[in-house]
């Protein structure tokens, strides 16, 4: 049997892809998200400087020079939204990726080990589950960000960095990383549960028994044979986790605990906009629109993926 004949066997993913393409809402969401990514990560570089203040021209209406007008400091709103989107999306995507890896490994190890180790590991998850998520994220973020700030100062001092732009960049990173860690350190619980439940079923199946009887080491069985088979449901969950994490970031930033100036994210823009609601509602509505539509698209894509990968649930 040649190699290509093996590949034809991956019909689950091909079927799912086919079904996904039939789902107009999901396809539209996918296109929308691609456009949003291009806007935030490519087009943004060609926009005006989002930090350039022009106090003479504050609260300008949309026009040829500033397509979406300017904010309270005369900064171009469109480029602020696009640059802010970079951070919102980066936080959502990276935190999800980290949480995904932790959750899958944790759940798989727990499920595959079974008995006492499994019970102990899942009890930890139960306990963490019962803790209000945002409360712990806030505490953890506060703790980490104080260390990150110290680390940033230390790096600047020991490397004797003089350039203000470099110092600025180091501080920006020091602001983002604690938030990323705090969200992903606590965001993997559901994924661990999903994966464990699947592994419990998969480890009784013939192909796992075959791999075992061939004498493969447990880690190899897990990584090569079991985890790839758990990815379907996990991927659905991932597309629903990204918007949730973007929402957490925005919530923390809105409360003044997350992303801080000179960094900006959609949450920061909405927070700023809320202060000028009475006279300039557009300062909140426009970033809010970008934020909400992006979450919308992620959720619709997630729903579409679920229907595509789990046709039994989709028949409703």
């Amino acid at each position, binding site marked *: 049997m040649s190699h290509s004949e093996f590949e034809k066997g991956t019909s689950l993913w091909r079927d799912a892809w086919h079904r996904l393409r039939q789902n107009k809402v999901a396809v539209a969401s996918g296109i929308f998200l691609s456009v949003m990514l291009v806007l935030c990560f490519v087009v943004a570089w060609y926009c005006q400087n989002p930090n350039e203040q022009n106090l003479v021209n504050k609260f300008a209406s949309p026009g040829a020079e500033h397509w979406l007008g300017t904010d309270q400091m005369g900064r171009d709103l469109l480029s602020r939204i696009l640059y802010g989107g970079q951070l919102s999306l980066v936080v959502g995507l990276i935190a999800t990726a980290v949480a995904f890896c932790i959750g899958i490994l944790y759940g798989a190890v727990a499920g595959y080990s079974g008995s006492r180790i499994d019970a102990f590991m899942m009890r930890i998850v*139960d306990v963490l589950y019962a803790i*209000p998520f945002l*409360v712990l994220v806030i505490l953890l973020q506060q703790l980490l960000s*104080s260390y990150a700030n110290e680390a940033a100062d230390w790096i600047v001092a020991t490397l004797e960095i003089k350039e203000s732009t470099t110092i600025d960049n180091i501080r920006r990173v020091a602001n983002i990383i604690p938030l990323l860690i705090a969200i992903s350190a606590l965001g993997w619980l559901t994924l661990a549960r999903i994966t464990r439940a699947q592994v419990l079923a998969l480890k009784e199946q013939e192909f796992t028994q075959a791999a075992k009887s061939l004498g493969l080491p447990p880690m190899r069985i897990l990584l090569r044979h079991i985890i790839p088979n758990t990815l379907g449901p996990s991927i659905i969950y991932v597309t629903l986790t990204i918007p949730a994490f973007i929402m957490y970031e925005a919530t923390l930033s809105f409360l003044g605990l997350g992303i801080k100036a000179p960094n900006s994210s959609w949450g920061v823009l909405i927070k700023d906009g809320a202060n000028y609601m009475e006279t300039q509602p557009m300062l909140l509505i426009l970033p809010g629109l970008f934020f909400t539509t992006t979450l919308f698209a992620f959720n619709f894509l997630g729903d579409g993926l679920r229907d595509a990968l789990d046709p039994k649930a989709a028949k409703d």
Partner: protein
Amino acid sequence: MPRFILQRLLQGLLVLFVLVTISFFLIQALPGDAFVKERKMSEEAIQIQKERFHMDKSWAVQYVHYIKRLVFYRDLGVSPKKNRQVAEILQQSFPPSVILGLNALLIACAIGIPLGVFSAVNKNTWFDYLSMGFAMVGICIAAFIIGPLLQTFVAMKIPALKVAGWDNPLDILLPAITLGLAPAAYLARLTRGGMLEILSQDYVRTARAKGVPYLTIIRRHTLRGGLLPTVAFLGPAFAGLISGSFVVETIFQVPGMGRHFINGAVDRDLYLLLGCVLYYGFLIVILNLVSDIVQALLNPRLRDTI
């Protein structure tokens, strides 16, 4: 059943213990303390204050002391920043949070459950698409967007409604709507899913074949089973509403617990923070237990297993 409840209560105690321990050391590890920003106080005064709150001792001693007071005297300590009993602060700010959460939950149920049931019954009609679209909007539109919008475009236009504050009963309306929108959306989706599953059961088909009126089928045969996932969601949702209402409380200036939690985190107010965390944790544990029991009462299949 009693054994199950006892087991869950013990597990809840364990959760609370772990929660307090993690939070205690997390907060202690935060740099600075409650007095670091007090410029008015002299060094000596700060030292005296620190001794009063045992802040000159090691973390372990402080921890043991806190747990001892908590377990034996149910004493939450004194807030160093506010110089008041934490229990007293929380007893004042807890009711607004609970009232807000309850009203939000009521609004969520009043919108979400009927929407879900009607969507399921009228599956794949314009009503279904419309209400599920609405549900998606409810999930995606954040409280910090809808809150300011309601303030500007509703509260400022209607004289009876205030932009912010917590004086007369009507002030609850806008914050409760803001807070209840997301759970309303989740409830609608959950209820629709649960109802659809029951509606496709054989016994429903049998009932229809017998000629039972459709409304009677919905009422007598499907609502109880179809609402199970909804009920399962209500307990955690209520706990989430109370512990997640910082944003809404900030926007509408509700004198609830959220404010104390955020301020406590910023001010490094150890005992106030721990008190808030304990209240939140306690609520979640109790509400999860209640929702499990209610589920068991509604679902005979679960009743035998516990």
